[in-house]
């Protein structure tokens, strides 16, 4: 209905409810003995009672079980009574052949209920209390029947006929199923109409299977969906509830998108699905989509959703799921279309789960629509549009005083500003119409971001949105990591002591994220979706069968406790896990920037081992990238490429994945070291293409690509060109306030000038880089800048060798402790060169002082296949040996030198599979 949400629980009488009524009638047949006729023991009687309770609890479902499913369950419950019960139900149902039979049936039911005056009864007499659950159910059924028009009764009658017929036609298939005990056999399908559906499902199943084989995915059970997916295992009541079955259920639940199709499949063996369950299912799917990104099957899920929509046209969340599905498959137009449709229909009232359900205004929550739209634009890389939409979202949520939405919107804006390089926001944010920043346009983007972050954090704290607080702390940490606080105006050496980033603040921010986890631990189930609740009943169903513990003291417990007890293996919601996990990722990055390789590695490892289950695919890929890069720097390429291979198997190599980017980076570095300049340029170009893809320009990647371009030019000894590229890169970094990157670029410029023989020009660059490094606490980069500075001094003449050596020795602890192979080798070689060029140093007196570092350098470079540096090392060695008068060793070193120079000049083409692989892929 237009604008009016239809009452969800219009209680209609259905064939399934009729059979439940029959069972209730059996359970509570008016007799005088404590255990009525067919039952042999109290526990048997109770078991049926519990089962009936479960059935009545989930009567507001979307899909009801077919008769044969009911019969299957009765077999479980009934034990010895199995045949009697099923026969009774089927015969009773088939005896209903005319409308009058139905009238009589419901009249009989009325007799089962005790009258209001029969409150006093004998202890051993079973009479249904009209106010009990079962009694209420019966009364509701009777009432619903009485309200039916004659046409309605006719419909009920035909439906009962169909219901029975289906059961009979699938009876044979049931037997078949029992034989091979597989829930997934489709051969047994007898109805024509279901054939094509089944074909589709089969295909999907195959597809999923193939995917599973191709990519060994981690199972994706998260917090709330957990109940649902486990539910699937449990409700497939099979003949032997052994663990073997559970395994199968788990497996089948990981084809989650095929799952719903099975609902429709009459032999799928799936139990009830309540409205809540469907909501829960949809939420699970939403998480799954986020987690697996584009490796989630688009069409299969789309098909499921379409079917769901047909069955429940008022369930608007389906549109939202379609939006998500399209979003992660980069279909802009469908995503937009579905997002708008969803909010048009639902008015945002079922949009987000953090929205308190109290319908405080009838206006609808269109501000959430704006928030989602903004995030969508962000995802598709339209930052400007996203910012516009988010600005509107801020305004509208202020207007309707939806503080929660406001806080989230601000957080989204911060994220946007920090992720995407804006040179200026004037005209968008800084305009006088901007709600938050009335300070005007004079602020830089960074300052605006800072103001926004502070505001967002404060808001989230006051609203007690814990997850948002934690997320904001992380964002704050990220900001602190790469931006100096306060003025931000000059970076002159005078003020450099004051203007520094503060690692302690970063650490503090990161740490405050942890409070989240402890808070969620004590809060427990408040975050679980309501959908989980109704499933708990069915979940418990198995317990009385397995052991009688629960069925005996059921009366003393309320139903909430067992629910908590059984369905919550981990009380921490997946989203919280994700947040905490990402704080580890942030730490790893922070240490990477600060230059502590072991700590970065440790944090990455913690993430990879502890949070892999909860992480999204992109985060998981990022961690792998970090670890592999670490390997490449410290262990050489062989190991890195081996690790890369496993990572590639783990993550589907989609168009712009981090894995692919890292592969290109590794290839580029190796090509440079080996002297394959053509290949290096090729790989570099590929990176450049990735940087400016259809979905927005990735500033980080763009910087990376041009940095590598400059490096390649440098290696090709085209100094002026390299300098030009580096220079324009520096300009870009400056424009977009990428200060950490600026330091790297300045260092590169210094190197370029050094290599071109212009040491004097290089010096200021190296010094500028040093000051940047100091400002941002980039210790490792600072060490390597110091190294370059030492090299520069050295190339100024032998009288500066002492200065160079002092500089070098100052940086040595950092370099040896945290630097990679190449850096260490360079440091060693430079040290040796310093000694050699020092006129006061005599080789013959102290040969090991020079030879030792050179040997070490040669060893370390071996893994990197860095021919240029190796040649240098061997050359120096040869000179030393010459001076020492050891011709044999001199010849040996000279020979190695020759080999390396040769291979540098004539890169022999012994290509390994990985390399040719990429070129094919690219």
């Amino acid at each position, binding site marked *: *209905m*237009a*604008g*009016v949400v*239809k009452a969800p629980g219009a209680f209609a009488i259905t064939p399934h409810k009729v059979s439940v009524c029959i069972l209730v009638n059996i359970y509570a047949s008016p007799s005088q003995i404590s255990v009525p006729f067919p039952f042999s023991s109290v526990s048997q009687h109770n078991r049926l009672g519990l089962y009936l309770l479960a059935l009545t609890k989930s009567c507001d479902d979307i899909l009801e079980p077919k008769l044969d499913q009911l019969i299957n369950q009765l077999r479980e419950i009934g034990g010895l009574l199995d045949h009697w019960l099923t026969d009774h139900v089927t015969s009773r149902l088939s005896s209903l052949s005319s409308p009058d039979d139905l009238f009589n049936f419901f009249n009989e039911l009325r007799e089962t209920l005790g009258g209001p005056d029969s409150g006093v009864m004998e202890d051993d007499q079973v009479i249904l209390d009209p106010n009990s659950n079962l009694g209420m159910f019966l009364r509701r059924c009777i009432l619903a029947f009485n309200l039916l*028009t004659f*046409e*309605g009764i006719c*419909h009920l009658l035909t439906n009962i006929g169909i219901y029975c017929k289906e059961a009979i036609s699938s009876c044979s298939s049931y037997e078949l199923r029992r034989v091979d005990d597989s829930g997934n056999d489709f051969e047994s399908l007898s109805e*024509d*109409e279901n054939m094509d559906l089944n074909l589709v499902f089969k295909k999907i199943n195959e597809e999923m299977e193939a995917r599973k084989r191709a990519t060994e995915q981690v199972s994706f059970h998260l917090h709330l969906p957990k109940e649902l997916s486990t539910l699937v295992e449990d409700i497939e009541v099979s003949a032997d509830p052994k663990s073997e079955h559970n395994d199968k259920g788990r497996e089948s639940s990981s084809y989650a998108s095929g799952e719903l199709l099975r609902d429709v499949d009459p032999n799928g063996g799936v139990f009830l699905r309540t409205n809540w369950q469907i909501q829960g299912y949809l939420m699970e799917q939403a998480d799954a989509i986020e987690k697996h990104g584009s490796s989630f099957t688009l069409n299969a899920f789309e098909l499921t959703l379409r079917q769901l929509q047909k*069955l*429940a*046209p*008022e369930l608007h969340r389906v549109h939202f799921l379609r939006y998500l599905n399209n979003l992660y498959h980069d279909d802009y137009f469908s995503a*937009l279309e579905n997002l*708008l*449709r969803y909010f*048009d*229909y639902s*008015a945002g009232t079922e949009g987000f789960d953090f929205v308190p359900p109290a319908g405080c205004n*009838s*206006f*609808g929550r*269109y501000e959430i*629509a*704006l928030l989602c*739209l903004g995030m969508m634009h962000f995802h598709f890389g339209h930052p400007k549009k996203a910012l*516009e*939409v988010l*600005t*509107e979202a801020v*305004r*509208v949520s202020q*207007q309707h005083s939806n503080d929660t939405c406001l806080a989230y919107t601000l957080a989204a804006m911060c994220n946007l500003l920090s992720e995407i390089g804006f040179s200026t926001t004037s005209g968008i944010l800084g*305009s006088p*119409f901007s709600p938050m920043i009335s300070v005007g346009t004079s602020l830089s983007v960074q300052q605006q971001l800072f103001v926004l972050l502070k505001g967002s954090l404060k808001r989230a704290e006051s609203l007690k949105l814990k997850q948002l607080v934690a997320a904001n702390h992380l964002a704050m940490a990220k900001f602190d990591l790469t931006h100096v606080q306060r003025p931000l105006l000059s970076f002159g050496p005078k003020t450099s002591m004051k203007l520094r980033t503060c690692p302690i603040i970063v650490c503090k921010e990161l740490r405050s994220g942890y409070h989240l986890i402890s808070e969620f631990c004590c809060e427990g189930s408040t975050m679980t979706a309501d959908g989980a609740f109704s499933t708990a009943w069915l979940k418990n169903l198995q317990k009385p069968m397995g052991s009688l513990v629960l069925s005996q003291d059921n009366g003393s417990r309320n139903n909430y406790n067992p629910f908590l007890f059984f369905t919550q293996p981990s009380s921490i919601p997946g989203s919280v896990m994700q947040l905490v996990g990402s704080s580890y990722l942030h730490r790893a990055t922070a240490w990477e920037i600060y230059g502590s390789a072991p700590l970065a590695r440790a944090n990455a490892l913690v993430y990879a081992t502890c949070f892999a289950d909860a992480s999204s695919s992109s985060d998981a890929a990022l961690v792998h990238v970090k670890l592999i890069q670490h390997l490449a720097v410290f262990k050489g390429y062989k190991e890195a490429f081996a690790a890369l291979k496993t990572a590639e198997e783990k993550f589907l190599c989609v168009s712009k994945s981090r894995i692919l980017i890292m592969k290109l980076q590794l290839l580029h570095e190796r090509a440079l070291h080996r002297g394959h300049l053509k290949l290096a340029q090729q790989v570099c170009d590929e990176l450049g293409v990735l940087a400016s893809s259809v979905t927005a320009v990735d500033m980080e990647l763009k910087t990376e690509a041009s940095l590598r371009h400059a490096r390649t030019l440098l290696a090709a000894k085209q100094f002026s060109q390299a300098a030009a590229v580096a220079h324009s890169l520096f300009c870009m970094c400056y424009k977009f306030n990428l200060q950490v990157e600026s330091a790297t670029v300045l260092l590169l410029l210094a190197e370029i000038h050094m290599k071109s023989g212009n040491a004097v020009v290089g010096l200021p660059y190296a010094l500028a880089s040093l000051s940047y490094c100091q400002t941002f606490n980039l210790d490792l980069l600072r060490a390597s800048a110091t190294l370059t500075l030492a090299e520069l001094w050295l190339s100024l003449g032998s009288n500066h060798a002492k200065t160079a050596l002092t500089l070098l020795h100052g940086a040595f602890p950092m370099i040896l402790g945290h630097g990679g192979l190449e850096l260490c080798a360079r440091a060693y070689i430079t040290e040796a060169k310093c000694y050699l060029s020092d006129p006061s140093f005599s080789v013959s007196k102290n040969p090991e002082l020079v030879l030792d570092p050179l040997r070490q350098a040669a060893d370390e470079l071996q893994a990197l296949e860095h021919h240029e540096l190796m040649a240098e090392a061997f050359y120096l060695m040869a000179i030393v040996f010459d001076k020492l008068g050891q011709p044999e060793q001199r010849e040996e070193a000279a020979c190695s030198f020759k080999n390396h120079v040769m291979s540098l000049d004539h890169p022999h083409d012994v290509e390994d599979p990985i390399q040719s692989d990429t070129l094919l892929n690219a």
Partner: protein
Amino acid sequence: MSSKESCRIELRTAIRQLSDRCLYSASKWAAEQLVGIEQDPAKFTPSNTRFQRGSSSIHRRFRTNEITSTPPTGVAYVSTPVMEEDEAIHGDFYLLAKSYFDCREYRRAAHVLRDQTGKKSVFLRCYSLYLAGEKRKEEEMIELEGPLGKSDAVNRELVSLERELATLCKNNTIDPFGLYLYGLVLKEKGNENLARKVLVESVNSYPWNWSAWSELQSLCTTVDILNGLNLSNHWMKEFFLASIYQELRMHNESLSKYENLQGMFTFSNYIQAQIAKARYSLREFEQVEVIFEDLLRNDPYRLEDMDTYSNVLYTKECFSALSYLAHRVIMTDKYRPESCCIIGNYYSLKGQHEKSVVYFRRALKLNKNYLSAWTLMGHEYVEMKNTPAAVDAYRRAVDINPRDYRAWYGLGQAYEMMGMPHYALHYFRKSVFFQPIDSRLWIAMAQCYESEQLHMLEEAIKCYKRAANCNDTEAIALHRLAILHRELDQPEEAAFYYKKDLERMEAEEREGPNIVEALMFLATHYKTQKKFEEAEVYCTRLLDYTGPERETAKSLLRGMRIAQSGFPSMDVEHFHP
């Protein structure tokens, strides 16, 4: 085009054949066109026509001539085919079945024909089964949940019908009518591609079945699909093209086709109504009103397309005419969606929006895919300030037909009302995409851009320019353009638009503050430009008005006179401040 006479012959035969197969709406349509053909004035006498239409002997005579009735021009190369007739004994059963059918006892009709194998009998049997299923489906829809909510009612005959017709089709023992039915069934089953193919085959071999054409039309949602159809030439194709062009919003093409057809079918009410609808889409309301008045004079009990007429009356705010129309349709047939829609329109015009919603709801109960009712209901909810309900109604309209620009416009309006101009823009963009010639849409979009929150004046100007180019009847665009240019400090452009606006207001003899504003601006503008003559003209015109502007104009004039007389001193003053 073939000659009128041959057309007439073809139609007469077709009507007989169609009504023989109980395809009544197609035969109704054909009959309307038959009467619409202009009579040869030489032969025309009233008695003659009456005789021709009523006499069966004429029919018999024409039947014998059927084969020779191929039009000599050769454009329409499909001649009226002779349908094989079932044998006499079976013919009796057929007659019984047909009478049952005529009494709407579809299952009974199908039962009578259960053992008949003639093509005609098979068709009628299948057709009655189909209709029986449809009837039951409709009933169930009401019984189960009501047409606005969930309904899983399906035509239960479809499966068996599809199977039977597919076999017939495979054995090549199916006639064009059977193909039509097959297409219908396929469409209902969702197999659109095959349905299209089958329907094309049907209309190619028997073009006079308008129902088949309409079904085909509903399956052609884009121009590409239309161009992909392999249709034989026939004058019926022209009707089809005209109709589908209208559906695809190619109004001018459609209009020219209809006007072409009108040369032959001069008196066709159908064509007249379609022309009116096309013109309505082109927003030529005056003409539309005339056409509809004419139409109602000829055919006073007509209900089809009358909702369009009521829309015109609504836009022109003709209270009494609209109430008269509403009264008339309710006397004719109360339970037609068009009637309910007209009454809804009437109440809306009277400002009684709740009542209006009631009638739109009734229209939707009668036909839940009734597009304009959803849209109009959305408008009512907007009036009632119930924006979520309005959004919902509009969205349903859009989901039924994504090309409905009014609903997109409504969505945009609703969101704009809620203070979400940026969000609304998307909807307005959609709306102008489907109807780029409607100035109101452009103006709405421009106002969105102009809104305080967005303040994207450049874009607003672009929109207003588009609006000004498409016959902006309310003359908002020019005025706003002038103001915006003034605000953006572009006096030249502002003057240009003020002048245009002024000319327009003069032409339409409008009065109001806008004139004063325009004169005022132009006077000062020309004065600063040192074009004193023009400035003086505007100033003197200002003197005709009362108010403070008059005084300003006086002082302006005075200043100019001083400046003109003491030009050099003025110059000096100008350069040494």
